[in-house]
């Protein structure tokens, strides 16, 4: 079988880079074929009402975080000119007196100003009651995505959606959300009639729908937690059990990943998981480059090569 020379060069350069753990990935130069499509995913999780940076009191995180600095950074990244999706994986609320006093209003207003595209719900977003969360959504225009909570008969009934499709340049990107089991974690009087549904089944069904609608990439916002000692459902399990999810933006376990994790999924392709700790101490950035023949839809299984971004 003859191999297209350009493709061969591109792939060998890519694989050599990855195998040799080189920090430079050939997303430009040789690899700049017309078929390459790019998107920058920016993400946060478990910000927990950390609107101001941690106080300068000798604590481990002193001076870190804060929405004003994050907003400025996001603006700088947007100014690079590429397509950007800004996402949050839940637990927006609870953790500083801002939440006790204002019930989430400044958190929501700040996210709206930063231009978040979507978020999912974490267990602490129920903390001032489901009605309160629904009320605070009046301050934002981005959707709350969650496909495994049945909110029928609750204040959230008409205020969420299971997924949203974003057209970013040439790329069609489907984003869905999954939430954690509420029983034993969230007080019953706070979640009320909300019914928790199997997150793997719900996520797979929704991702399938997104693929069938022609999405080039499917992202799952998850508040399940990255992994556990026991068989409790996690991002790791979801990744391995998934068919069509390319990327899981996780939360709940407050884990600072050294680098994104990669798991072989049910199609034998790669599903990537990332999480950036908590409190807005970090902003995660994932620059995706999709290469494939022009004829082929990108809606196929992807082999993913992960590398550290070194160029600005």
């Amino acid at each position: 079988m003859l191999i297209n020379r350009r493709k061969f060069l591109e792939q060998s350069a890519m694989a050599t880079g990855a195998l040799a753990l080189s920090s430079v990935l050939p997303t430009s130069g040789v690899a700049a074929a017309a078929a390459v499509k790019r998107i920058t995913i920016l993400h946060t999780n478990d910000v927990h009402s950390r609107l101001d940076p941690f106080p300068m009191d000798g604590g481990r995180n002193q001076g870190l975080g804060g929405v004003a600095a994050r907003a400025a950074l996001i603006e700088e990244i947007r100014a690079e000119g590429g397509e950007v999706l800004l996402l949050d994986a839940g637990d927006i609320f609870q953790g500083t007196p801002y939440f006790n006093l204002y019930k989430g209003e400044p958190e929501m207003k700040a996210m709206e100003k930063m231009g978040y595209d979507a978020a999912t719900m974490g267990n602490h977003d129920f903390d001032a009651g489901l009605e309160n969360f629904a009320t605070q959504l009046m301050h934002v225009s981005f959707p709350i995505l969650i496909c495994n909570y049945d909110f029928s008969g609750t204040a959230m009934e008409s205020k969420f959606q299971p997924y949203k499709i974003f057209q970013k340049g040439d790329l069609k990107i489907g984003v869905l959300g999954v939430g954690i089991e509420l029983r034993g974690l969230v007080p019953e009087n706070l979640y009320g009639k909300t019914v928790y549904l199997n997150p793997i089944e719900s996520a797979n069904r929704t991702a399938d729908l997104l693929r069938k609608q022609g999405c080039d990439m499917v992202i799952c916002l998850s508040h399940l937690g990255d992994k556990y000692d026991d068989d409790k459902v996690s991002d790791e399990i979801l990744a391995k059990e998934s068919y069509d999810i390319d990327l899981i933006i996780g939360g709940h376990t407050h884990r600072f990943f050294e680098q994104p994790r990669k798991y072989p999924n049910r199609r034998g392709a790669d599903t990537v998981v990332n999480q950036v700790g908590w409190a807005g101490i970090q902003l995660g950035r994932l620059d995706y480059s999709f290469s494939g023949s022009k004829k082929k839809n990108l809606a196929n299984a992807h082999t993913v090569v992960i590398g550290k971004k070194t160029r600005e």
Partner: protein
Amino acid sequence: MNRSFFLFCTLIVCISSCTSTQPVTTVQYKDYRIERSVRSDTAIVSLLAPYGAALNESMNKVIGFSNNQLSAKQPESGLGNFMADCMRIMAEKKFGRKVDAGFMNQGGIRSYIPKGNITVGRIFELMPFDNLLVLQEVKGAVLQQFLDKMASDGGWPVSAGLTMGIQDKKAVNVQINGKPLDIAAVYVIANSDYVANGGSDCEMLRRIPQQNKGYLMRDALIDFVSDLTRQGKPLDYHIENRVVHVN
């Protein structure tokens, strides 16, 4: 790079290119640390200003002093000991009866106490939840299950007077106020309503009746620190082998 390694890589790629029909995706990742040196967005600063002003007025009030920095650690920490002691002592005051032990769920400790002044805001960060301090009368057997749950989690804060070991994710050598835990005895324990209602997977407590005076745990912490300050005492908490790992 080693030349043969390069050839090997090329070979691998050749083989995979010949057999695989999957497109390749590359992901370049970068984690930005949000630091003070990063520029601030002025629109966000002015958005927050009015909220922050009102907040600081109530939150910056100093109510006490800590001799050292206290942070949440397992199986035991000075911070946990302070919080569990507060639960027991303030429950005795509020309910006017003897309480055998006070507890704090590890996951419910949301911040730390820096060395030096303790402000109201600091207590809000430590205990942001509107959880209530409640009492329950439990059989020793149920208490053992509850302590086992703590052990399987790596150790939760317990009040002074209770000591236990953690072995194979179970609570062993449990002593309460100088005596071994008696599975037939009845103990009065102080918890948050969150835990008493079965939160943090404490199903064993869920059906047990609670005494509740609508007293917020956060208020208990503020009152406890303020009481110490009135007595001229700082917060002085350390590890004292209440919860230890046993091999």
